[in-house]
């Protein structure tokens, strides 16, 4: 087990390396000379050369890449071209809202989607099953911003239950936090719920065809138990896999949802940095979000053994 964890951790290193290389090259070939941007319009060629040398821009690409990696290792993510603040500081200031939104969305989605999927599997072929599954397809066909604005229209503008936009942190104002986080959570959850519910239904159905289910039924295990103990437990691996791969939708969704609901999180920072062409900031944000995504899937891989004792490495 420990050996597996170590091997799995090591296996993320090449992926991280490739991601870092992609992100580096992406920005390396971006138009515009970072030195010229930093120096301003009135810089002399000598000043430019000095900045280039200081940033290592006069070195070969390959050397620059490893220099950049080394800087990252030391926790130096560079300086924003726009605000001149350290990128790490700007990102740290935005983590809170995004983290809250991600946690509420994940929790809510899992709590709703798995029972929904198991129910649909139980009601297989009936009208309620088809309804749930059609809604699920509708769920991941509707972009977050359309769902978001529908919710704002119905629950904020018409019903007046929630503020239209904005955010307050849990620590500063728990009630306002709950009121502001509800709609973005609902909007983000639809896609996620749809994905998880669909996979829950189909994996439970697949397990229901196994011999041990017939055995369980034959020995008189109550149907409830057949579904929850025997089928769902064995269907756990595909379900948690999709929770992991769905995190990509969640991260993409956060970018959009934060714009819709005016939440000052990382997603908004991504859009702001792109509109401002703040390359060091963009670079760090893509890298950070990718590392988070890789991390989530790493944790999920490790969870497999917990949910399915048959898996031994």
């Amino acid at each position, binding site marked *: 087990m420990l050996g597996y964890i170590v091997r799995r951790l090591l296996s993320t290193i090449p992926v991280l390396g490739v991601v870092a290389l*992609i992100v580096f090259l992406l920005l390396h070939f971006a138009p515009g000379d970072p030195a010229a941007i930093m120096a301003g319009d009135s810089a002399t060629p000598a000043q430019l050369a000095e900045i280039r040398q200081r940033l290592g821009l006069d070195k070969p690409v390959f050397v620059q890449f490893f220099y950049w990696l080394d800087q990252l290792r030391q926790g130096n993510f560079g300086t924003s071209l726009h605000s001149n603040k350290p990128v790490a500081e700007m990102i740290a200031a935005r983590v809170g809202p995004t983290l809250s939104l991600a946690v509420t969305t994940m929790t809510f989605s899992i709590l709703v989607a798995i029972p929904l999927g198991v129910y649909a599997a139980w009601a*297989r072929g009936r009208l309620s099953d088809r309804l749930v599954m059609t809604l699920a397809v509708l769920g991941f066909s509707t972009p977050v911003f359309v769902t978001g604005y529908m919710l704002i229209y119905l629950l904020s503008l018409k019903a007046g239950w929630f503020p239209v936009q904005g955010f307050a942190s849990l620590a500063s104002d728990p009630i306002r936090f709950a009121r502001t986080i509800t709609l973005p959570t609902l909007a983000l959850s639809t896609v996620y719920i749809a994905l998880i519910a669909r996979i829950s239904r189909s994996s439970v159905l697949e397990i229901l065809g196994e011999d041990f289910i017939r055995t369980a039924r034959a020995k008189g295990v109550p149907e409830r138990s057949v579904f929850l103990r025997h089928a769902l437990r064995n269907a756990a691996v595909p379900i948690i896999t999709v929770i992991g791969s769905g995190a*990509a939708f969640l991260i993409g969704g956060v*970018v959009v949802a934060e714009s819709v609901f005016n939440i000052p999180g990382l997603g908004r920072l991504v859009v702001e940095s792109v509109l401002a062409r703040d390359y060091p900031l963009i670079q760090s944000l893509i890298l950070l979000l*990718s590392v988070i995504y890789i991390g989530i899937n790493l944790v999920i891989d490790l969870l497999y053994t917990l949910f399915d004792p048959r898996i031994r490495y």
Partner: protein
Amino acid sequence: MQKVQDLPGKAPAAARSRPRSRDWPVRVACAFLVFILIVAVVGPFLTSGDPLHINAANRIKPPSAEHLFGTDAMGRDVFARVIYGARTSIIVGFVAALASLLLGLAVGLLAGYFPLADATIMRVMDGIMSIPSIVLAVALVAITGANLGTVLIAIIVPEFPRVVRLVRGVILSLRSEPYVEAAISLATPTWRILFRHMLPNTLAPLIVQGSFVLASAILTEAALSFLGVGLPPEIPSWGNIMAEGRTYFQLRPGLIFFPGIFLALTVLSINLIGDALRDRFDPKLEKRH
């Protein structure tokens, strides 16, 4: 969705109300998609409105007989814009999806058939797939600047590795098929093995995957345009119309809802058709992600 017939145990209503009657959502989806395609092609003839005609005296009007969906902040006819937007969104979606499939097919054939190329290609694909696709698309546009070509690239790059993975999987499993081994031992040229014996087998999964790639491409374009980093505002696309509608949303929710509903229904139709295709071609094919 899941096939029901071979599952033992309780088979509730399913057995009674089977096959044809449950096909209707797919039929409606096909009909709607055909409708949208027609709108995209002949759209300009359906509306007398000019999607670019600015009329300052006629700003953000509610829907009326003259302007079915009302007017936007510059007094432009929203109905005309949604119709023209269909053309943009559909063309961008189809071109991006087709390019992703072709690129994915080519790279997937390479990776699947040539073990030497495989490791490198798949590491790069893993890397691209580890970057959340919207984030990658947004970043690509940031670097290259938003225009039609760069938006297409921004949609294709995050999308095609999934196709590569699919094609590679098919090719790998085909390599050990007796007929392929026979072809190899008969010194059949490699290109012939690839194109004659292997390519046709990738077709069914590609068509299924293609529908999901198409849905995803249309959504990505809309999201990019909505965030203001997509197509330039002078090209009406569903995402652009919504982006411009945000400011006046409280006053005229239709500015977002009309294009939004068209977008959601189009993607829904494509996904429903994709599900049906998957059930038909290969019920065991991996369920979307």
